[in-house]
């Protein structure tokens, strides 16, 4: 049994104890108020966050989702041990485009990139129990999204584990799903229909929320809208919105026609980087004390980024680029966390055509690609890629999450 498994078991036990971690017994606002913090832009304890995200870099579980022409959708539970991957089990899942885990329960949420569910135009979110003892996943529920919230592409769970945010790319909507005590998301408690367009006549004819994540130190979420060329700041704790009260606290326009598609948050929470897919670029944003994103860095790219991720050394960000029929490219960028400047430091060809997701664990970057799982060893001192190799041949990977 890995150290991480022990950690998680401890977390699960804590969740049932009287000194439960964030959100397990009190609501998010009450918890934060109890910490002497208030308002939407309150800081969470880094110590607390650390306990959730700690992993043993030598051995851990990873789940990847695949779908393609020959595969309607599969989740693969992988055990990563000393740089090698072993498939523990697989489970059917319809077009798993995004994966996210509950912060302290052994549950995995899967966005199903579908346009119809039970004949109605809507996407869905599946919930799987992660059975660590047996190395299996068990489907425990499938929750439809709101009407027209089709093709969800991104998920985020609040720090207290009580809200699941869904970015529905196809239908141009955000859904907030309340997670009950058993970990199952309910019907959408908030539905936010997005309206917008961008400069690209076909790709951006309407809003397409494509990525969403929670800020690590506040209860706010940041989302990228690929179709509307903007970032949306959401406060899911807002009371049910009405015409005078919306959960969108801010909208930040991006460069016209740029297509903001991915967001990577610096672990400190003070800076985040946005990948633009249509006018290839990376933008760095800092958050003002009022939690308003201010663009501080920008780097244009030659090829469209398909995935981005910070290194575990924090001040490097990696971007994967699609290059037509050629091998995908991994570029490394040095980020000045204070100024937000981006400085390219290396380029590495990868044994794949398209990269869907990446996560850094210690000195290795784990990459989900159309040609399988790829490990990129990072130089322990410079943080730049040293060598890459395929660790699993599973094709058509579209999503990944570390468990």
């Amino acid at each position: 049994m890995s150290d991480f498994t022990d950690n998680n078991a401890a977390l699960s036990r804590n969740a049932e104890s009287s000194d439960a971690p964030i959100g397990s017994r009190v609501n998010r606002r009450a918890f934060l108020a109890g910490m002497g913090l208030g308002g939407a832009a309150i800081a969470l304890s880094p110590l607390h966050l650390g306990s959730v995200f700690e992993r043993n870099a030598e051995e851990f579980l990873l789940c990847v989702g695949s779908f393609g022409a020959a595969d309607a959708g599969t989740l693969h539970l992988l055990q990563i041990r000393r740089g090698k991957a072993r498939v523990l089990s697989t489970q059917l899942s319809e077009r798993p485009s995004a994966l996210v885990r509950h912060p302290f329960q052994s549950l995995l949420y899967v966005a199903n990139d579908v346009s119809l569910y039970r004949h109605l135009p809507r996407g869905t979110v599946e919930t799987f129990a992660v059975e660590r003892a047996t190395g299996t996943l068990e489907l425990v529920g499938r929750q439809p999204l709101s009407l027209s919230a089709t093709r969800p592409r991104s998920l985020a769970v609040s720090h207290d584990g009580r809200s699941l945010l869904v970015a529905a790319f196809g239908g141009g909507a955000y859904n907030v799903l309340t997670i009950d005590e058993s970990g199952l998301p309910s019907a959408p408690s908030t539905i936010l229909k997005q309206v917008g367009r961008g400069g690209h006549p076909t790709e951006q004819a309407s809003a397409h929320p494509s990525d969403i994540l929670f800020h690590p130190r506040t209860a706010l979420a940041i989302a990228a809208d690929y179709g509307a060329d903007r970032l949306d700041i959401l406060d899911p704790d807002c009371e049910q919105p009405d015409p005078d009260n919306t959960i969108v606290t801010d909208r930040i326009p991006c460069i016209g026609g740029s297509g903001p598609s991915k967001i990577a948050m610096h672990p400190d929470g003070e800076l985040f980087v946005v990948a633009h897919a249509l006018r290839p670029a990376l933008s760095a944003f800092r958050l003002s004390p009022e939690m308003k994103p201010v663009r501080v860095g920008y780097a244009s790219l030659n090829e469209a980024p398909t995935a981005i991720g910070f290194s575990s050394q924090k001040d490097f960000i990696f971007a994967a680029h699609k290059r037509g029929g050629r091998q995908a490219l991994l570029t490394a960028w040095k980020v000045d966390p204070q100024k937000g400047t981006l400085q390219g430091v290396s380029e590495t060809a990868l044994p794949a055509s398209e990269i869907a997701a990446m996560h850094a664990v210690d000195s290795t970057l784990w990459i989900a690609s159309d040609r399988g799982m790829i490990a990129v060893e990072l130089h322990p001192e410079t943080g730049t890629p040293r060598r890459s190799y395929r660790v699993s041949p599973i094709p058509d990977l579209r999503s990944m999450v570390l468990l």
Partner: protein
Amino acid sequence: MTVVVNRKDPRFDTLKRGHNARFPSSDAEAADRILLCSSPEEVAQALHKVVAAGLRPTVRSGGHCYEDFVSNNPHGALIDLSLYNTIGRDGEDGPYRVAPGAVLGDVYLALYKRYDLTLPAGSCFMVGAGGHISGGGYGFLSRLHGLTSDWVTGVDILTVDGKAKVIERRVDKDHDPDLLRACRGAGNGNFGIITSFCFDKLPPAPREVAQANLIFDWATMTEDRFTKVLTAYGDYWEGRGKDRDTWGLFTLMDITSKKRGHFGIYIQYCQPDGTAKDLSVLEEFLNRFDPFQPMLLQAHGSLISRRGPSIAGRKIQKGEQSLNHVREITVRPALDVTIGEGGSGSPTRGKYKSAYMKRTFTPAEASTIYRFYTSDQITAQNSVLSVDSYGGAINRPELANETAIAQRSSIMKLQWQCYWPDASGDQIHIEQLDKFFTDAYTGSHVDAHHQGTPWGERYEGCYMNYPDSDMLRYAYWPELYYGHEGLYPFLQHVKKKYDPNNVFHSSMSVQE
């Protein structure tokens, strides 16, 4: 001033409902607020606020939508147009205008009293003009004058552009003609909020109409006899009923359970000049059913007849009363008939289906209908299959390319209806009605790729104003409602152009 009714308002529980009491499906499915608007300006302001807040708007005129398109709108906003109900004319010789919140009864009265005109619309007095006209509404005068949407020459409509701005459009043949065409049959809940229907001209109101009923006794109705009655009815519309001199004839066959004792045909007729002086067309139709010895209406009265000879009017009788086979025709002022018995009752739970027929009934269809209505199924006892005559002026082929109603070859339109009082009946009635419908269109009379649906050589699909979400299970459901001649791709193009963000949507709205 827009009236806002939220969940705390004592009016909310009443106003959240549609006419179909199944919706909202639950309290959680109801819209969180209802915005009652009294003018186009109020509608525009309300729509702007709703869109800016990221809420889904649904739009209600009369509230008679058969499915959940309007009343189910969790966390959303229901924009109610019922207080915006003006009927008039631009100047002395300008186009006629009908606001979406006007109910059909008021439309008939206003058009008649002010202009001596009418609209070939439906028979339910309380149905709102907004959904009815934009969805291709029809009624007793439609064989003579076409569909309501056939007469629409312009609409005022609010759309939402890609930047969330509400655009006020005055649409006609010279301005956004593609949107005009889309709103002439597919304008309900797809592209925007229609705030006014414009008609350059309207048909003259008829002076009088003749009415009659044919009642058939289930007790003597073998399957063979039943098949012959249906065939006689269908044959007429497939043959003689296509002749122009019959276009003033409209009939409605209501088939109900054997346990109700009888079923029948309601007939209404007026000549193209708006009178009912020469009833030879009507007599000819009635004669067709003499071999089946229809019963005297008064013996059974109110169950079948929604309109009829038991009321005052010029009466023409034929037959032997002693044999209980008397036939009675009543000629009445057309306005009395139009608004006299057109209430749609109190809200109740219901399920509906529809089919356009291009040919008469097959023995297989008749057999399915006979078996259902002579069975002990509870749904049979709670349902009625209405077989309306169709065609005539509706079937002018050129209208298929000018409007968004593709069905221009049908001779009958069928409406399956089932009603029940409470939620405990939902599952069984919805399932049994669906099975009945599916059985009717399963067999050699339907091509292999469309089994279970009214589509193919004999059929022309379904009617969007009688929406049936069960049809969503067929991947080709848009074909059922919009045909296969390119109308649906056209509507998709219009949708993308005028509602690029799909602000106006339902489970059966035009999709990408």
